[in-house]
């Protein structure tokens, strides 16, 4: 064979084709968006270019005769305890290209996942559990400032009326929302699917920093629009149409890093929605160039409140970093109605791998720290807390709420619900599942009729499970679980970790 450099020779996947079962329908050739498989008419054979395969498994899923299996290549670079094969491959790759390694999806390093070290306490005899199939169980929750006290007036006729002016609230039928994914990083079909599912579920979806496509205005009443450093797509109509506005300061997958949608991906529709010329790079700088302090942030929060006549809650989203609690306190004092904290396992369309995998902190400790600090300062009622970046299941939602969140945003799991196979090549724009791509040939792989139903099913299933778990804890409303760490116990954590999370070890 001809010489191949190691990073090509040690390709991660092998496309195994059972040639007897293969009927040459050529579906795999069409489905592979990475050109890892092609047809040789002369020999009537489908060949595989294994080195191009990213392991998205689209071909495997779509093969009508089950003739394809994508398996890890057993021939890998020699590895040992300190040099795992992926590190070796990165070194090979960088020696060849001299560039930053860019990747997609969330942090895949084996850091401790605190969710997996927390168990939920259940009622037995002394206090009874509740059967959610027979008793009412409340998952409805409200996001926004809660006043310190409620004042009522009584008219002469004895009619009671509310005197306190309540801050604007978002009403969620279930404490799960679809997190920010911008039009551009994902396509319109997927955004429409989330919007439709959010409307059906009585929850909210988030536009991300890409503006609001005109086709999605009918769903904007359940939409949260983002104002990020690039101010893409921000207009009066955009702010007016939405249910809430989110100022994006940071993102869990890339704390301290801005966004970049390369010009070649900015087609006419994305350009129109983002309000930039077609073909131009959409760069959201790492900092907002008008925000260098909490006072500056306060100005933007109130500018947005003015623009929306104080009728809409303003969210501020930050990445989970080590001093997150102090930052959150500042954000609360800057007038935000909701703080969104994004953990370091959050997903991304594209980021330097070095940042994704090594910067930030886990969402569990961040939320516990933020909730405790705001309580200590007596301002917990001033803001709601939304957790995101690493929520994988209904149990994670329950645990994060018990650790102090009001609700959770989900994103990666929403992509899993519509087919994502975690191949981590979102940054290429070639997503074979039609999720993180705007290629018209690939984007059509997400039919919003199907995708919205799958998203709806996922959240509906989780909501049922959460009711069951609440019932087991003897709690009949999700609001009573917020910050209720006594319902959790930890297993296998250090004393310090227990202290930060505010949980007791199992057995105590």
């Amino acid at each position, binding site marked *: 064979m001809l010489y191949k450099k190691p990073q090509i020779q040690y390709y991660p996947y092998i496309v195994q084709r059972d040639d007897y079962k293969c009927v040459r329908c050529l579906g795999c050739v069409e489905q592979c968006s990475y050109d890892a498989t092609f047809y040789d008419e002369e020999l009537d054979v489908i060949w595989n270019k294994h080195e191009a395969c990213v392991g998205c498994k689209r071909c495997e899923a779509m093969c009508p005769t089950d003739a394809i299996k994508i398996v890890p290549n057993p021939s890998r670079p020699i590895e040992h305890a300190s040099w795992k094969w992926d590190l070796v491959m990165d070194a090979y790759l960088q020696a060849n290209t001299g560039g930053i390694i860019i990747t997609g999806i969330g942090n895949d390093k084996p850091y401790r996942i605190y969710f997996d070290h927390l168990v939920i306490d259940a009622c037995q005899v002394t206090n009874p559990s509740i059967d959610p199939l027979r008793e009412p169980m409340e998952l409805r929750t409200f996001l926004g400032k809660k006043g310190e006290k409620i004042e009522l007036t009584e008219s002469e006729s004895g009619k009671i009326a509310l005197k306190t002016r309540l801050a604007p609230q978002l009403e969620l039928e279930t404490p799960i929302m679809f997190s920010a994914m911008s039009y551009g990083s994902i396509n319109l079909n997927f955004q429409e699917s989330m919007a439709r599912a959010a409307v059906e579920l009585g929850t909210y979806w988030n536009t991300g920093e890409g503006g609001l496509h005109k086709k999605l205005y009918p769903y904007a009443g359940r939409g949260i629009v983002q104002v990020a450093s690039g101010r893409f797509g921000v207009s009066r109509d955009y702010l007016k149409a939405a249910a809430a506005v989110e100022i994006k300061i940071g993102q869990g997958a890339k704390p301290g890093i801005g966004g970049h949608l390369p010009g070649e991906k900015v087609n006419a529709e994305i350009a129109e929605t983002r309000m930039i010329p077609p073909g131009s790079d959409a760069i959201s700088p790492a900092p907002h160039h008008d925000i260098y302090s909490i006072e500056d942030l306060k100005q933007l929060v109130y500018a947005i409140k003015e623009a929306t006549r104080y009728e809409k809650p303003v969210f501020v989203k930050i990445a989970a970093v080590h001093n997150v609690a102090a930052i959150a306190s500042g954000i609360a004092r800057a007038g935000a109605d909701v703080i969104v904290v994004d953990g370091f396992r959050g997903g991304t369309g594209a980021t330097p791998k070095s940042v994704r995998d090594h910067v930030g902190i886990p969402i569990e400790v961040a939320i516990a720290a933020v909730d405790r600090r705001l309580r200590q300062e007596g301002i917990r009622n001033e803001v709601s807390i939304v957790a995101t970046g690493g929520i994988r299941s209904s149990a994670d939602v329950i645990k994060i709420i018990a650790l102090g969140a009001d609700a959770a945003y989900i994103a990666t799991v929403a992509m899993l619900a519509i087919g994502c196979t975690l191949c981590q090549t979102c940054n290429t724009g070639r997503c074979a599942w039609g999720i993180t791509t705007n290629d018209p*040939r690939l984007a059509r792989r997400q039919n919003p009729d199907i995708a919205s139903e799958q998203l709806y099913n996922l959240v509906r299933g989780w909501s049922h499970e959460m009711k069951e778990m609440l019932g087991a804890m003897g709690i009949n409303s999700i609001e009573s679980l917020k910050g209720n760490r006594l319902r959790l116990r930890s297993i296998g954590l250090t004393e310090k970790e227990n202290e930060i999370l505010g949980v007791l070890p199992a057995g105590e």
Partner: protein
Amino acid sequence: MKKVIIIEDYCIACYNCEVACVATHSRSQDPVKSYKREGLRGKTNAVVEVESPLAFSSMCRHCKHPWCMDACISGAIQRLDNGIVYLDEERCVGCWGCVVGCPYGAAHPNLAGKDKHAFKCDLCIKRLDAGLNPACVEACPNNALLYDETIEEREEVHK
């Protein structure tokens, strides 16, 4: 009448409709055997046409006034009471009149097999009788094929 409706916006050119069509019209009912043992490769009524990014599965429209039937010299093509335009392969003499006559290219010559006859979509008549959807519709992973009344017909009913 209900027909297979093609939604071009969601066809992803996976060719599953082609394979399902071949298997359903085979003796074995098995995709691998029908292609490899029965020589049915290429004998599919759901032909996927790709002009990237567009793609669609072109197939018989079961016209109210079928051009293929007009062109058939042997009477092998008939319009059944339920509206299905049916080609009886036994009676076909292989003149390819229907192949030329169909403006949609939905009638095909079978050149590979021993018996030189034409073939075209029968809307999976046997499956319909059994209360199932046509095989291509069932096989489409992206709902790009629907078994339904056409929009015009639905509107007619409303009138």
